[in-house]
């Protein structure tokens, strides 16, 4: 082993591998926060773009500045991710080189010169040097990956204007393909990795696919579905039923917004007669309640009343916890039974259950991809809707809900524990004959053996009274949504 090689081995053996590993791990954390940061900046941009707090030429300039900020942040985020990947490739090379260098030096220190065992020292030393060279190459790659951002020899652009010159901001953006049949987690990761320009392009190019895609943030689904709604309202060839539903949805949105409520249209499938409409912000609010209605509910006929229930539930939640920001969503994401023959079979629930499970997964995934704190999520199911929850719980994995409320259930297949939720509540009354029916299972939710926590009711409450603010059940559901009611 020559003197220069011995010196190099000595240097490699002195590397502080744990310190390097810690530093790279912390760079990983820093890089991860940047994509979340970009999502929040874009949220500010959307708030400004809405024109609700500022409009006019200067406001438009400010919106443009935030678009630029988002675009540059996306480019830097992508550059840091590539750079980080090179740092991470470097780590095992550093560790192996360090170990082999130490080994070679240790053996060499105890061997007399000229012995055959010296060959193994040379071999080990060569291996150490090869790994050290690979580490050095990865270290250079970490810097080279930032070249597209104007970084040269470790020197970055001096300021934002300089950086802006290295990031292409103009020109048409080709909309990316929308992922098909992917888990919401994968969808959310795909979405979070798109630039804002690409996100807006895909909303424009594929609103039907995007508007129904679980894992995409609520704001984006809302924009996509409103485009679909506008098209439907402008169309002259739509079947009467679909046209009526489109008008009902549009009128409901207008009425809620006129009342100062934020509305997010999460699903608009006119041909499938499916709609999901939220009051509040599903992307950021502390608590989310998903209302799953039962039979004979259609968007065209019942959206107004169901949205009223959602608004009442939001008010009850705020009464229970005034500081809690709450979003309540009418989820008609399944086609409810429209006549008795359908109501006594599970077919609709078997279609709705998987859709509900995926919708719940999507709500969590969209937040998780940008490190937004998860909402406390409660599923509030009424009547046949409780079957849908039953079917959703049968899907692989755990139902993504913190609490389930079963109202006027006609019977469940199994006990409350089978729903795999941390807390299950129920409400049923003697004056509600449906809750005695046991059509789809002999487990009555009001029986002690079922295992749910009963909510307060009044004996005279009928099957449609659970959301009535004049009875005690609604306030109790609000407490569940807020997390203020402890299960027994």
């Amino acid at each position, binding site marked *: 082993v020559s003197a220069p090689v011995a010196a190099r081995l000595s*240097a490699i053996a002195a*590397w*502080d*591998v744990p*310190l*390097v590993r*810690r*530093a790279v791990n*912390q*760079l990983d954390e*820093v890089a991860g*926060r*940047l994509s979340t*940061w970009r999502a*929040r*900046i874009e949220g*500010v941009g959307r*708030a*400004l773009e809405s*024109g*609700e*707090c*500022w*409009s*006019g*030429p*200067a*406001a438009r300039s*400010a919106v443009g*500045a*935030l678009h630029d*900020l988002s675009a*540059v*942040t996306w480019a*830097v985020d992508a*550059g*840091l991710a590539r*750079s980080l990947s090179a*740092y991470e490739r*470097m780590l095992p090379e*550093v560790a192996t080189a360090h170990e082999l260098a130490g080994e070679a030096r240790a053996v060499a220190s105890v061997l007399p010169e000229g012995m055959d065992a010296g060959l193994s020292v040379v071999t080990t030393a060569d291996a150490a040097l090869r790994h*050290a060279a690979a*580490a*050095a190459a990865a*270290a*250079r790659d*970490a*810097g080279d990956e*930032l070249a597209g*951002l104007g*970084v040269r*020899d*470790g*020197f*970055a*652009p001096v*300021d*934002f204007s*300089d*950086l802006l010159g290295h990031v292409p901001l103009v020109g048409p953006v080709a909309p990316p393909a929308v992922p098909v049949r992917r888990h919401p987690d994968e969808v959310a990761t795909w979405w979070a990795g798109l630039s804002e320009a690409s996100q807006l392009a895909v909303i424009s190019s594929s609103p039907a696919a995007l508007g129904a895609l679980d894992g995409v943030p609520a704001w984006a689904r809302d924009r996509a579905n409103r485009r679909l709604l506008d098209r439907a309202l402008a169309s002259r060839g739509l079947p009467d039923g679909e046209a009526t539903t489109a008008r009902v949805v549009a009128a409901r949105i207008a009425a809620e917004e006129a009342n100062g409520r934020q509305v997010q249209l999460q699903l608009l499938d006119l041909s499938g007669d499916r709609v999901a409409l939220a009051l509040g912000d599903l992307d950021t609010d502390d608590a989310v309640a998903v209302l799953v209605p039962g039979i004979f509910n259609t968007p065209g006929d019942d959206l107004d009343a169901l949205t009223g229930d959602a608004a009442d539930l939001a008010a009850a939640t705020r009464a229970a916890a005034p500081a809690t920001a709450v979003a309540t969503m009418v989820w008609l994401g399944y086609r409810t039974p429209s006549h008795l023959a359908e109501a006594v079979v599970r077919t609709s629930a078997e279609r709705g259950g998987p859709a509900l499970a995926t919708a719940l997964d999507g709500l969590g995934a969209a937040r998780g991809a940008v490190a937004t704190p998860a909402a406390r999520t409660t599923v509030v199911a009424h009547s046949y809707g409780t079957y849908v929850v039953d079917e959703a719980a049968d899907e692989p994995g755990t139902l993504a809900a913190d609490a389930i409320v079963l109202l006027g259930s006609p019977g469940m297949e199994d006990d409350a524990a089978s729903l795999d939720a941390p807390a299950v509540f129920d409400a049923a009354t003697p004056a509600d004959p449906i809750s005695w029916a046991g059509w789809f299972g002999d487990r009555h939710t009001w029986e002690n053996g079922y295992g749910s926590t009963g909510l307060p009711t009044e004996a005279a409450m009928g099957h449609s009274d659970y959301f009535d603010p004049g009875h005690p059940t609604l306030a109790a559901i609000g407490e569940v949504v807020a997390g203020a009611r402890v299960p027994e």
Partner: protein
Amino acid sequence: MSAPVPSRPSRGPITVEPAALEALAAELAALAGELAVDAEHSESLAATFPVALGGEEGWVTGATATAWAALQEAIADRARAVAGTLSGAAAAYRAQDAALSGHMGRGRPAGDREPR
């Protein structure tokens, strides 16, 4: 509230809700602050690489982490500047509204200034 008439004709209305605009400015300023903290963190990590590795590897990895910090700082500075523009706009609208209000008030007869 409605803003003063702009110096050049505009195609659309000009409106501003100063309190809401100030809230957005504050959020943006807070975001700028968070990223600036991350930039400082990257800068401190940059200093650990030469210590941990030494030689060319230490210099290269440290310089790259310094570039990370510079990129983050550039973005944070811009976010801070936009936040300042937003809060400045809100303050300017408030000030101009107050000035206009005062100007109009001066046109009233002295005897009308106090209710009787």
